[in-house]
């Protein structure tokens, strides 16, 4: 067995093993479902961090920075800042609401089963949209490191996660995910250290500079399918059928192509070639990004406001004993995430120098995995690569478990209804659909798809939570209208982008980053319709507000 496969097997076994250990500890149904709330803040924060750091963080951010440069640094900034916004506006009241999911919150706050059902549909939609890139990332990782077909990784992750979630519930998920945060941090920081040393001993070459990416040495690129590339400089390459001259313009490449040392790297047609200076500069549109200022602000809005609405984030708050603990846990999470996100961009930057062939193949999400072999090599390089593969699998497994727990929970409560036995069936259903989507869909960059899930959450659950917590005037019709409009608009934009309906100009930019227009619209509709239906403000709103905001130490009667 190759070391990479051994690493995957080890992570899978540890995940299942810790899961089974957790299961032994879970004795009652309430243990099983919500971990009994007996989880300490550091454990809980580690679990939140472990669950949150997904394929997008471990592979996607580096891949985006590698291809599109400085503007992509906003992805990790937004992923962390989203937690600050969550802390400032919703953490403690949300915990005090006693809601386990957004639909629970909607029903408790507005007393409407219609809004509850709408929210359930959205939870499942966002959960599935977020699961697809996790499974695709798994396929990509196994293909890049072991040459296995792309479906293998996706199926492995889907099966392991379903077994673990269906068998262990929340309790074991907490243990597994806390462990996986530390595994991911180790897996990304140890290789980074060696890569930096290798870069130093290489004479610390400039990471930016006036030139575009070049092959530093004679490079043999293997292509599994035909790739259409843009050639910028005339170059003579060796192929299996002999020498071939590539003239500037478009060229179709396949099989094994050998580029001479010092030649410019032709880029796959969806990525524009950029000089190092343009790549390092914000708002330069490097890589062919259009309307970068708009795209940056829309991304900021999606990530800052979307985090609070992600299905697997809210569930975790339920495991805090009270509102104050929820705040403190979130603060620890901010620290854990901030530490992790110092590293992915480094991989993206080093990739420009040491793995530029990925700009030709278009598999930019594999840049993290490609660097140890390219920069360190030998047995140490293999070992570091295996460590990264282990970290990547920890990312796929933990985020997928979190998403699966929440989507299965919602499917169970609002679709299947019943006992723990049905929770198992719900988990299977919740995993099968995204697996089929992942196998069928063409893959966009992982980070971008996850960004779309954030945009959808920001356009629906952010207004529902913020207005529901702070504004007595929110009504069930207002919330429903806002969810329908915000969810509808963002879902339409997501589908149009995934299907590649528009690929140039303002329409493409607006659809690829919908949050800038869909979030304000959702807020406006929710407020407007609530004002118009003032008569249907829930009667118990005063009691609800007391429950959400009064500190627990006062011992006021809670709930209904």
């Amino acid at each position, binding site marked *: 067995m190759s070391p990479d496969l051994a690493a995957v097997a080890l992570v899978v076994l540890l995940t299942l093993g810790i899961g089974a250990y957790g299961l032994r500890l879970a004795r009652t149904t309430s243990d099983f479902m919500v971990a009994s709330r007996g989880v300490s803040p550091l454990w809980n924060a580690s679990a939140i961090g472990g669950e949150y750091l997904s394929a997008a963080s471990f592979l996607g951010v580096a891949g985006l920075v590698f291809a599109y440069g400085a503007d992509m640094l906003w992805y990790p900034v937004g992923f962390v*800042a989203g937690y600050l916004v969550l802390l400032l506006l919703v953490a403690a009241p949300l915990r005090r609401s006693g809601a386990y999911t957004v639909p629970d919150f909607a029903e408790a706050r507005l007393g409407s089963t219609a809004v509850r059902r709408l929210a359930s549909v959205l939870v499942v939609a966002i959960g599935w949209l977020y699961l697809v890139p996790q499974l695709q990332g798994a396929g990509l990782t196994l293909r890049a490191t072991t040459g296995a077909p792309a479906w293998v990784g996706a199926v492995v992750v889907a099966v392991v996660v379903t077994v673990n979630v269906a068998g262990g519930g929340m309790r074991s998920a907490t243990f597994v995910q806390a462990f996986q945060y530390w595994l991911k941090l180790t897996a990304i920081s140890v290789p980074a250290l060696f890569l930096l040393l290798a870069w130093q001993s290489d004479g610390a070459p400039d990471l930016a500079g006036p030139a575009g990416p070049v092959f530093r040495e004679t490079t043999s690129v293997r292509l599994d399918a035909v790739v259409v590339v843009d050639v910028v400089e005339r170059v003579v390459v060796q192929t299996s059928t002999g020498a071939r001259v590539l003239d500037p313009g478009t060229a179709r490449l396949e099989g094994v192509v050998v580029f001479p040392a010092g030649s410019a790297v032709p880029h796959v047609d969806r990525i524009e070639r950029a000089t190092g200076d343009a790549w390092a500069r914000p708002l330069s549109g490097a890589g062919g990004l259009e309307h970068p200022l708009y795209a940056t602000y829309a991304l900021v809005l999606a990530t800052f406001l979307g985090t609070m609405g992600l299905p697997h984030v809210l569930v975790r708050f339920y495991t805090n004993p009270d509102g104050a603990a929820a705040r403190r846990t979130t*603060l620890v999470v901010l620290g854990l995430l901030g530490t992790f996100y110092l590293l992915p961009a480094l991989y993206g930057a080093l990739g420009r120098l040491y793995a530029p062939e990925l700009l030709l193949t278009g598999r930019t999400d594999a840049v993290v995995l490609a660097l140890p072999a390219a920069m360190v090599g030998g047995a140490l390089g293999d070992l570091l690569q295996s460590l990264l593969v282990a970290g990547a699998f920890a990312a796929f497994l933990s985020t997928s478990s979190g998403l699966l727990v929440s989507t299965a929970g919602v499917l169970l409560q609002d679709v299947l209804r019943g006992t723990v036995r049905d929770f198992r069936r719900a988990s299977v259903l919740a995993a099968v659909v995204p697996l089929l989507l992942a196998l069928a869909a063409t893959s966009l960059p992982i980070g971008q798809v996850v960004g779309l899930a954030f945009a959808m959450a920001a356009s629906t659950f952010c207004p529902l939570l913020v207005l529901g917590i702070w504004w007595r005037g929110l009504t069930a019709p207002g919330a429903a209208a806002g969810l329908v409009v915000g969810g509808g608009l963002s879902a339409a934009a997501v589908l149009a982008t995934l299907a590649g309906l528009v690929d140039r100009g303002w329409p493409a930019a607006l659809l690829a980053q919908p949050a800038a227009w869909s979030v304000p619209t959702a807020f406006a509709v929710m407020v407007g319709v609530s004002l118009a239906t003032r008569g249907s403000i829930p009667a118990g709103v005063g009691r609800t507000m007391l429950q959400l905001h009064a500190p627990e130490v*006062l011992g006021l009667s809670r709930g209904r």
Partner: protein
Amino acid sequence: MSDTPRRVAVTSPRTRGVRRPPGRPALAALDEQDVVGDLLIRSLMRAQLGLGLRLAAVFGILIGGLPLLFAVAPRTRDLEVLGIALPWLVLGGAVYPSLWAGGWLYVRLAERNERDFVDLVERS
């Protein structure tokens, strides 16, 4: 030793309705949601929302203002500090500890608001 359970007397306080906590009218006002209770909880909500929004605004301007700064003053895109390009220094590093510091400040102040509220309610 006999297995027969001992006789126990079962009594009831025979009060009508819920007993008010003695000497803590504010707590009762909150619990019963009369005018005073309503004012009290509204004041806490206003303090907490104001705190959250003020900090959100500070970070919105400091961090959210960066793309605009890069857009209107293009020279800042190439500025170097300690040999590292300013955008990378800020977005790749400095922003994370500042977000944590913001969170820390918020937790401190929000807990103080709640302590003040509890003092107010318990003392009255």
